[in-house]
Structure formats: C-alpha cells, structure tokens
C-alpha cells in the first residue's frame, strides 16, 4: 500500500510532467505554471544546499579547530557588498580566489587528461598481426592529427597543404554526425522513461484525466484567442 503523501506526490508529478510537455506547443499559461513552480523549487533547492554547504565546509572546520577557514566565510560575505554600489568592488577579492583556484586546478588537470593522455592514446602500433587493426590505427592517427591541425589559428595553409585542415574539418563533421545520431537514441529513451512513469498502473487513469484536462484548457484558450498561436 502506498502512503497517501507519496501517492499525492506521484499525481502531482504526473500532472507536472504533462504540463511541461505542453511547452512544446509554445508559450502558454499551462507551461508557465510548471515553469514558475520549477523556478521556485530549484532556486530554493540550490539556496538551501548552499546554506548547508557553507555550514558544513565553511563553518564546521572553524568550529573544529581549523580556524583559518574563517577566511572563506569572510570572503564569501564580501560578495554581499555588491548590494551597495559604493562597496561593490569588494566582490572582486572573493571572485579572484574562485578564479585563481579554479584555473589552477583546471590547468594542471587539463595538461594530463586532455593533452598528454590524448597524445599517448594516439601513439598506436602499426605492425600488429591483424591487418585491419593496422589500417584502423593508421586512420586514427591521420584523422586525429588533421583534426588537431584544423584548429591552428596563426597559420594559413596554402596550395596542396590546404588538404590537411580540410580533412580535419571532415573528420570533425563526421564526429558531429556520429554524436548527433547516437545521442538521439538516449534522448528518445528519456521520453520512453517519462511515458512509462505516466503509464504506471496506479496512476494511469489520473494521467489520462490530466491529459484531457490540459488539452481542453488549451483548446479553449486558443479558440477564444486568450492564448496566441504562433
């Protein structure tokens, strides 16, 4: 037996799912209602998690002896000086710390995972016993190199050399096509997932009811020109 609160939640979830899909028709009050609920809920969610995070990662260390964490709280508080124009410039200090720490971590990580590891993965053997593997490896090397060369900014290739960046461009386009085509499957599965939720035996009759209600409301709205049809 499902408890009433959970059941109510599932009904609301079903209604909101259908209301959100109505967004596909264009901007209208039904979709706006769902939008405003989501804006309130996610902003509140993020804000509350932020409060808890400040408590856990900023205040708790101070309380347990790592007193220098008080700096993070002070820096964080300096953000609020933006509320008044004459003190707004104080926000630059905490922002500088965020940027500095972020770029430091990003740069030191990128050189390994996005640069050296990629190079290492492209140095491939061309003399394996399997001929097919050799051809594939050779293709992999050529295509990776041309795709890298495509991005060169400060040199324009001339004459027969234009073929290099052009092949790189084709490689990139093929990669885009592959990503496009294969992503579709996953995105379709998401719709199927929502469909399965709406069709769960305990709520399916309500789903149908909500669907009819929403369609009726929209039909009336469009008919009476209260909602514009683009």
């Amino acid at each position, binding site marked *: 037996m499902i408890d009433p609160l959970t059941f109510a939640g599932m009904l609301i979830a079903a209604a909101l799912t259908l209301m959100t899909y109505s967004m596909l028709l264009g901007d209208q009050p039904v979709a706006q*209602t769902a939008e405003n609920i989501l804006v309130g809920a996610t902003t509140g969610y993020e*804000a509350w998690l932020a409060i808890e995070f400040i408590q856990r990662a900023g205040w708790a260390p101070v309380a347990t002896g790592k007193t220098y964490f008080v700096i993070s709280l002070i820096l964080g508080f300096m953000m609020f000086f933006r509320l008044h124009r004459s003190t707004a410039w104080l926000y630059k200090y905490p*922002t500088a710390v965020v940027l*500095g*720490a972020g770029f430091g971590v990003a740069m030191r990580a990128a050189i390994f995972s996005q640069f050296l590891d990629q190079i290492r993965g492209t140095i491939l053997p061309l003399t394996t016993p399997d001929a097919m593997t050799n051809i594939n490896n050779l293709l992999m090397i050529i295509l990776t190199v041309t*795709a890298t060369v495509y991005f060169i900014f400060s040199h324009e290739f001339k004459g027969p050399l234009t073929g290099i960046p052009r092949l790189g461009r084709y490689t*990139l386009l093929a990669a885009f096509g592959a990503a496009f085509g294969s992503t579709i499957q996953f995105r379709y599965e998401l719709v199927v997932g929502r469909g399965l939720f709406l069709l769960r035996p305990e709520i399916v009759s309500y789903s149908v009811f909500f669907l009819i209600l929403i369609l009726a409301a929209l039909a009336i709205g469009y008919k009476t020109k209260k909602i514009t049809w683009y």
Partner: protein
Amino acid sequence: MSENVYKNQLPFAVLFIVGVFVILTYFFQVPPEISAMAGDLTTFGAVIASFGILLGTLALVRYHVVLMYRKKKNWQFSILTMIVLAATLLTGLIGSSRGKDFLWIYNYLNIPINATLYSTTAFFITSAAYRTFKLRTFDSAIMMTVAVLMILSWMTLGNLAFPATIEIGDWILKIPNSAGFRGMTIGVALGLLGIGTRAILGRYREVLTA
C-alpha cells in the same frame, strides 16, 4: 594607496598568487600541510560560490517582488514562484536537506519537471534535424550521412534491413568519432591553458571588470 590599486590591481594580484600556488604545489614535492592548503583553496571557492548563490537568490526575489509590486503582465505567476521558493527553504530549515518534506518537494516537483524538460530534447533534436539536415553542401552531406548511419545502427529495424549497420556504427564511433573528438579535446585543453594563463597574468581584464 590610490583607489585604482585596491579596486583594480590588488584583486589581480590575489588571482595570480592563488593560481600559481595551486599549480606549483601540484607539481613540486611540498610538505603535505601545504598541498592540503591548495585543496582548501578549492573548498574556499565552493564556499564563496555558495554565498554567490544566496546573493543571486536575493536578486531573484527582488525581481519578483518588483514584478508583483508594479503589477506587471503575468505578475500572478511570481506569487507561485515565491510560494514554492519559500516552501522549499522552510522545509529545508525544518528538516535539513535529508528531511522528509524537503525530499518530497525535490522528488515530486523538481525531478518530474526536470526529467521531462530533459526528455523534450528528443523532440527538439528531431525538429532541428528536419529543419537543418539538408543536402546543401558537401559538409552538411557528410554530417547527415554519418548521423543517418548511426541512427540505423541503433534502430532494430535498421539492423534487420541492413545487418552491416551495427558494425559500421561501431566503426564510426571507434575511429572517426574518437579521432575528431580527440583532436578537439587537445585543442580545448590548449585553449583552456591559454585563457588560464592570460587570466592568471592579469591579461584578461574582463574577468574582474577592470
């Protein structure tokens, strides 16, 4: 000290010191306390960002209050937003983020709308493909052909009609797809290094509006 120094120059000095410190402590053998400090700086960043979220939330509340106060078009929706926002914060205050009520809002308001919104990408991808995938140029023909082959490779009907599509799809994913994205990843890493270097050296003034 002139105004320009502490308003515009000192923040860039802070950015430089923090950035260089975080990078150097990673590469050089330093006492564990110091490398721990570099880790703490990242936490500081997250704490500061959390304060930023609170500030942003205040701004959003102010925006909606102004809408409601001036009775702008559709101001009634702002009431809804504010009620849900207040309810979320209140349930958090009462029972923390692991509390039953807070999770109820998360599970039955956030997740369904969010998941549905995510799934609408399926519709938009389809209509975008219909609108833009035309045999206009050689470039668009390549992209479209590869995309169609990929679709056939995951579609059961496509596999039955053309059994080779499964292997072709695998090959495309394995060779041209990885090669293209690998070349791009190398470029992105270098771009990141470039912009990072400029930011840390204070040659990217926009980041601190100077």
